[in-house]
Structures are given as C-alpha cells and as structure tokens.
C-alpha cells in the first residue's frame, strides 16, 4: 500500500473526544507547531496491544508527542476502558467510530503510525506495531533531522 500522504499536509479532520476526556478532541489543526506522532489504535486490535508497552515507554522518555485516533470502537466505553487498563500514552485522542479520519489518512489496518512535522506535513508512515527498533532506526533520526531543520 503506497503512502499517498507522504510530503503532503495532514488531511482535514476534526474528531470528538473519547469518553472521559471530555474537554478536548483531536483535529488537524492540533498538528501544527511541533513534530508529533499520530497513532491509529482500537481496543479490538490485538497488534495494538502488542505495540502499547513501547508507546508507554516512548511517552515516558518525553522524546516526542504522541496523539491517538481511537478507530472504530463499537461501544463508546471500549476505547477509554482499554486505555485505563493498558496505560494512556496520548496527548490528545480523537474518537473515529465511522473511519472518517482513518480513511482520510488512507489507513487499512491498525496500528498505523504517522510522523507529522511542525508544519503539519506527513513525513512517514509505519504500518503495524511500532517498536524500539523502528523508533531507533527510522523515526528518531527523522525527527532529529526535522528538528534541526527548524521545522520542530
């Protein structure tokens, strides 16, 4: 599957908050200003569970902001309950029950993770669980380069 968004601005989306985070959802305008990761996840997604401990580590390291798109939950409680159980690494989380944002991002499965620069341009897409190796070898060097380039 090609990454149709590489080098393009993030698609417009405006997602409502998930239950328990009632103050703020997640929209494309939140992606302007600093480099961030956008992670597509769902409580139904087994591979997301596999990935999750690493996202928690990454959050703990403070190296990059991670936002979440909670994709296609059948029940409004499912996503929040999953985050309570496994930990919540996300700065902002948007609820995407009808795949609006997921389709706009060209997502085919979860998890998928997008690297977005400070101008809101999609730089890279990771399909499948993100882990330490992918982070060290691919994302971290890219982020450092973006920050040095003044696009942090």
């Amino acid at each position, binding site marked *: *599957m090609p990454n149709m968004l590489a080098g393009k601005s993030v698609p417009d989306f405006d997602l409502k908050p998930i239950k328990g985070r009632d103050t703020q959802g997640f929209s494309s305008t939140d992606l302007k200003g600093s480099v961030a990761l956008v992670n597509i996840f769902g409580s139904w997604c087994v591979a997301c569970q596999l990935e999750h401990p690493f996202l928690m580590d990454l959050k703990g390291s403070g190296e990059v902001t991670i936002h979440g798109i909670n994709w*296609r939950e059948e029940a409004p409680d499912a996503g929040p309950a999953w985050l309570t159980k496994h930990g919540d690494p996300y700065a902002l989380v948007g609820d995407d029950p009808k795949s609006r944002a*997921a389709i706009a991002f*060209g997502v085919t499965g979860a998890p998928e993770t997008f690297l977005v620069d400070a101008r809101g341009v999609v730089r890279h897409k990771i399909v499948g669980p993100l882990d330490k190796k992918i982070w060290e070898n691919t994302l971290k060097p890219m982020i450092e380069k973006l920050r040095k380039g003044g696009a942090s």
Partner: protein
Amino acid sequence: MRYLIVLLGLLAFAPSVSAVNPNEMLADPLMETRAREISKGLRCVVCQNQSIDDSDAALARDLRVLVRERLVAGDSDHEVVEYVVSRYGDFVLLKPPFKGATLVLWGGPVLFVLMALLAGFEFYRRQRRVALSTPAAASLSNAERARLDDLLNKDG
C-alpha cells in the same frame, strides 16, 4: 442431468449479491445507482479481491457510506473516486487506469504472449535444424555393415 441444467439455470439468473445494508441505501434511487456503480469499482482495501460493494468488512462499509455522503453533498462520480484514490492510491481501483505507472500492468500480459510465441517459434526452428543436419539413419559404411552382420550372425 436435468437437475444440473435447472441448477445452472438458477445460477445464471441469480441476482448479484451485494453487502449493502438497507439502512445504508440512499432514498434517491438514481443516486443510489451511482453509489453502487462507484462502489463496484473500488477495492475493499482490507480484503483486496472484493469490491467495497461486495464486502462485509467494517472499513468497506464505512467507505460505502462515505461514497454516498459525498454524492449527496454534490460530488460528481469522478470526484468521489478521485478522493478515495487520493487516500489509497490507484491500487484501490479494481480496474486500474491506463497511465505510465500502470503500463507494466496493462502491457504485461501482451508482452508475455509475445514472448511465449517467440520462444515457441525459436524452439520449432531449432528442432527443424537438428532434424535437417542429422544424416540419414541408414547410411552405414560398407565396413560397418559387414561388421554389424557379423555380430548379428554370431548371436543367431
């Protein structure tokens, strides 16, 4: 046999099955027809060999709904397809467009047939040349013939 014919007949007239739920359908039958036609040409990206019109997958359903919403919002058929392609690439089209990047896809089969014909022709030509260059089987020299007779007689 008669049952088989009846069965085949029934199959031939079976309505095409689609995964569209009644609650997804648009009230305007003309627009619904357009939505169906567009959906039949869009690949279900999680099942890959089905159109979103055929697939029960959740993402296919969401794409069907999106196609209808965009039609209702006033998009042309082309604009709807363009949007989905802009997200997923030409791959999402069950019938890929004819352009530079897909040239191999379209030209491939023709190329393979030509290659097969060429290989067949070359094989035939070589076989013919081998046949022509082999001397007639019967041409033994007189000395050879005498020795052969000798050997055969010894055993007999």
